[in-house]
C-alpha cells in the first residue's frame, strides 16, 4: 500500500468494496492522484495524445510495486481493466481527424483498444493471465473472482481508469491486486 491519503478516492473505495463483495483479498493497492505531487501523468513511450494508457500503466505499476511478497516464476496474474467510458480522448482525436480529412497517426491505431497498454503491462511485469476489459467495477471484480476460482489466474491486477470528460475535471485511476479467499491468511501475515 503506497497511499498515505486518509480518504481513498472513490474509484479505489469502489474497487475495494467490489473485491470484498466478490470474496477476494486485496493484497496491494494504489491510486491516482495519491498526493498533490501527482500532477502530470508520466509519459509512456509509444502512447500519444491521451492520458488513458499512461495513467493505467502508472497506477498499475504502483500497485504491483507495493505487493508485499515476491511472485514465484509460475505465478499467473490476470489483467482486468475497468473503464466506464474508455479512452474518450483518443476516440475524439480520431473522429476529429476523420471529419477534417487530416492524417490519422498510426500510433492512435495501436492505442485504439485498452489491450495495448495491457500488453505493455503484461510484458513489463510478466503477467501471463487473461486480459479483460469491462465497463463496470462490480463486473471487473466478478471476472477476477471467476478467473481465480477456475485457476486461470492465481491473482488479478484490477485497474480502473476514468478520464475527465468535462472541462475542469481530473483524470482518476485506481488499481488493486486481488487473490482468492484461500490466500487471505498468507497475505494478512505476509
Amino acid at each position: 500500500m503506497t497511499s498515505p491519503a486518509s480518504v481513498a478516492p472513490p474509484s479505489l473505495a469502489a474497487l475495494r468494496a467490489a473485491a470484498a463483495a466478490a470474496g477476494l483479498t486485496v493484497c496491494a493497492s494504489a491510486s491516482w492522484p495519491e498526493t498533490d505531487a501527482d500532477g502530470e501523468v508520466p509519459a509512456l513511450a509509444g502512447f500519444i495524445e491521451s492520458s488513458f494508457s499512461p495513467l493505467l500503466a502508472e497506477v498499475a505499476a504502483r500497485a504491483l510495486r507495493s505487493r508485499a511478497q515476491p511472485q514465484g516464476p509460475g505465478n499467473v496474474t490476470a489483467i482486468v481493466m475497468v473503464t466506464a467510458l474508455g479512452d474518450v480522448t483518443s476516440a475524439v482525436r480520431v473522429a476529429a481527424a476523420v471529419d477534417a480529412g487530416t492524417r490519422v497517426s498510426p500510433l492512435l491505431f495501436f492505442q485504439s483498444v485498452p489491450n495495448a497498454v495491457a500488453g505493455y503491462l503484461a510484458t513489463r511485469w510478466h503477467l501471463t493471465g487473461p486480459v479483460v476489459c469491462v465497463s463496470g467495477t462490480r463486473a471487473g471484480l466478478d471476472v477476477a473472482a471467476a478467473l481465480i476460482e477456475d485457476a486461470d489466474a492465481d491473482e488479478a491486477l484490477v485497474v480502473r481508469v476514468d478520464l475527465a470528460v468535462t472541462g475542469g475535471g481530473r483524470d482518476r485511476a485506481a488499481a488493486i491486486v486481488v487473490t482468492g479467499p484461500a490466500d487471505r491468511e498468507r497475505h494478512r501475515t505476509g
Partner: protein
Amino acid sequence: MTDALAVTPAPAARRGAGAVAVTGAAAASAYGRGTEALASGLLSGQPAFAPVQRFDVGARRVHFAATMPGLPELLTEVTRAAAEACDDAGLSSADRARTPLFLAIHGDPAIARAPEADKPGRGPGAFTAAVAAGCGLAEQDVRCYTSACVAASTAIGDAASIIARGHADRVVVAGGYLVECDQFALFDAGRVLADDGQVRPFSAGRRGLLLGDGVGAVVVESLRAARARGAPPLARLAGWGRTGDAYHPVQPHPEGHGMARAVTAALQRAGIAAEDLGYVNAHGSGTGQSDPAETNALRLALGDAAASVPVSSTKSLHGQSLEASGVLELIVTVLAARKGMLPVNAGFLGADDRCRLNLVLGEPLAATPEFAMSLNAAFGGANTALVIGLP
C-alpha cells in the same frame, strides 16, 4: 521448430461440474441477417468483400470491407440479434427477465462526436443496458466487454465458467461491430488492411486483414436448465481457455506460447485429446506475424494432430468483426459442425512454410466433427479458445 519445453505449462484447468450448452443463436453479417444467411454465404465460398459504400474512403489506402447494404445501426442490430437468439432458445419473457446480458462492443459509436455533457451517458455500460431493455433481458448484472478481438470470446468463456459452477443458469452473450469510418481510418493508418481486397489467412502472399460487419448472439445455458425446460441444445460448450502472452503490447508471441496455453486449457476443460478435434476455426487474421504465431501455437498444443485437423479462418469470407469476432465465429463453428460442412479458407494463393496446416481449400469439406474449436487473439497478447461439442 518450436520448443515445447519453453512453454510455461498450462495451469491445471479447473471448472465447475455442470455441463454447459448453447441453446440459441442469431447472427448478421455481410451475407445478410440470420444464421441461415450466414451459413449459406460461408458455404458459397465467396468472400463478401467489396468497395466500401457506407462512408467516404477516398482518402484511405484501402477501400474494401464486408458490409451489409445501407446504414445499419449497432444498437438496433445487436438488440435484434439478442432477441432472436432468445427466440431460437425458446426463452419465455419470464426466462429473459432473469437472464443477464454480456455484450462485446468497441463502445457506443456516438460517443466520440457527442457533446461533452452527453458523453458520460454514452458509455458502453449504458449501451449494454439499452440492449438488455430492448430485448427483455435482466437490466441488472449486465456486463460490457471492450477487450478488442477477444471481447466476445472472453465473455463466452466467462459465461461458461459461472454456469458450470452453478453461479448462473443462463447468460445471453452478444457482440456487434459494424464497419464505420473511425476504426476503418485507424486500421488503414496502421497499414494492416489488405490492399488487394482479399484476406488470405495462412497463405503465401497474404497482405493483411479486412473489416467486416459482424453481429452475433448466443444463449449460453446449463444443460440441466435447458433440459428442465425442454430446450434442445445446438451444441455443448465443452471447454474454454483464456491466456496472455506477456510478450509485446500489440504483437503475438512468435512461438504462440500464450495461445497454446489457451488451447490446452480448453481441451482440458472439455476432457478431450487433441485427436478428438475435428475442426479448428482459426483466428487467422491474414497478417504477416499473426498467422505463423497461430500455426506454432497449434503445433505446440495439438502435437501431431495439428498436421491433420481441418483448419480454416472464416475471416477470409466475412471479414474481421473486431469485438464481435468471438461470438460470430463461435456461431460459424457451431453451424459448420451441425451442417457437416466445414467452410473454406478463402483467398489461398500458395503454401507458406511457416503456416503448414491442413487448410480447407477450394470448396467446403464434408465432415461431422464431434468436437470443434474457435480461436481468437487480440492486441495485448490476449488469446481465447472455445471448444464446442455436438449434443
